[in-house]
């Protein structure tokens, strides 16, 4: 009885989070187009969704972009985390600060700054500008994920390896990678999701020839509510769910 206020408070907030999404999912199966009265179960909107070729092109583009961006960000971010932890070097504090600033930086500032950069370097807006932008904003998240894992290790195992004669490259391949791969993978998943969902930065650096999913959704939503979008959102939500569960499972794995 004493816990009732706490429990009801928590429940209310959880409902606040989930009811809109659940409504969305439910109505993606609603037969009627605009009414919110339940007209019966239907897969019609999913069918329309699947036959929308433009959309699938955008989905494909987003996936390709996400995979490349996540992979490269994972590599650079992983290296950065390892270097920050293991070495002291000129400008180390600056690097820490830069990663910190990048995470807190509002997307819009990053978006316009990259737009200016690309126009200066005469990089046309399209796949490449998107890729470079996505990699850049994913890197700090990988750094944080990997770094927090690496600090949990006994700091002396790297010294012990050095003591026993291992070169840095050997230490990286035979000690750091085997111990760190769950964190690297978690960083990859996080980057992939961030890339797939990014609206603001992509808005500024995307070009007309390479459509990506979030911008497509944005323009569809601005034009008005279409039940197709409900279906799309439901599927996307499901995908996110799968990714999260995956990353949680990986995060629990011991090397």
């Amino acid at each position: 009885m004493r816990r009732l206020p706490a429990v009801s408070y928590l429940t209310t907030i959880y409902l606040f989070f989930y009811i809109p999404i659940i409504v969305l999912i439910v109505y993606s199966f609603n037969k009627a187009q605009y009414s919110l009265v339940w007209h019966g179960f239907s897969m019609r909107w999913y069918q329309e969704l699947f036959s929308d070729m433009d959309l699938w092109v955008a989905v494909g583009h987003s996936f390709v972009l996400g995979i490349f961006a996540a992979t490269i960000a994972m590599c650079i971010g992983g290296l950065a985390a390892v270097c920050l932890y293991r070495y002291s070097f000129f400008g180390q504090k600056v690097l820490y600060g830069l990663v910190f600033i990048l995470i807190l930086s509002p997307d819009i500032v990053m978006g316009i700054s990259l737009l200016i950069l690309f126009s200066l370097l005469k990089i046309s807006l399209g796949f490449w500008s998107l890729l470079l932008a996505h990699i850049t904003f994913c890197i700090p998240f990988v750094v944080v994920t990997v770094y927090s894992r690496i600090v949990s290790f006994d700091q002396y195992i790297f010294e012990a390896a050095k003591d026993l004669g291992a070169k840095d490259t050997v230490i990286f391949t035979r000690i750091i990678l085997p111990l760190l791969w769950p964190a690297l993978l978690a960083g990859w998943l996080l980057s992939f999701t961030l890339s797939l969902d990014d609206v603001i930065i992509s808005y500024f650096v995307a070009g007309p020839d390479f459509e990506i999913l979030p911008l497509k959704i944005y323009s569809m939503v601005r034009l008005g509510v279409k039940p197709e979008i409900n279906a799309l959102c439901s599927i996307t939500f499901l995908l996110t769910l799968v990714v999260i569960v995956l990353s949680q499972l990986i995060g629990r794995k011991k090397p």
Partner: protein
Amino acid sequence: MKHDSFFKQFSLSVIWFWLLLFALLPFGLVTIASFLSRNDAHLITFPFTLINYLQLNNSIYIKIFKESFYIAGICTAICLLLGYPFAYLIARMQSGFKNLLILLIIIPFWTSSLIRCYSMITILKPKGVINSILLWLGVIDKPLPLLFTDTSVMIGLVYNLLPFMILPLLTNIERLDDRLIDAARDLGANRLTTFRKIILPLTLPGILSGCILVFLPAMTIFYIPDLLGGSKSILLGNLIQNQFLIAENWPLGSAISVVFTLLLAILLLIYWRSTRSNQSRDFL
């Protein structure tokens, strides 16, 4: 060691190259651009000028700044008031459900913000859930204009950003040492005093993290005011977006960003100062 290993040199080169080129340089370019002008042929040209900053002194822009600040501030306050008890209850939970409950917060956190925004539209629009239920119950006889108001923008912002307040608070409160609370109670403090004097100061870093993670996006996410507030709503994010992509006044847009970034820097300084004493090896 006298010479650095190949691995170290290679890694550092890659990292510095990337971050200098794609993170530091662009920020520098924005600052420079804010001092430049535009003409019909080019989006940004010489000569250097202060005209963009002078233009900002206009009451329209100042009004937008103030309003963005105000709305972001209220949003942050609401998120704090809603989020702190929530995070506190979950962080201090002992039961096995805890991991599941945390997972249930992470899910909305990772779900595309756009989708969540859209789901709010579904709820608030004239034929949306709330109106439909109220109509059906007979409480009202025509739909309430819930969408395209300041309230809907606020609801949208809170809905989107609440997880950003909860998660840092959660991490921070979990680290709270129970024994400190026990010691305080043991020495005679009641619940309120314990909260005021022990729990609140110790969770301050988490509160500040959460506030920063909510306040900054609240000022600059442009699609939330756009979708939920319609054309009436212009906040800072919309303004910058507008200047860059519609009005094509890049220098002015840059100037707005620079001013905003300075405000950001001040906030970060406050945050950094207050957490300096908590030397942990994490990033945030």
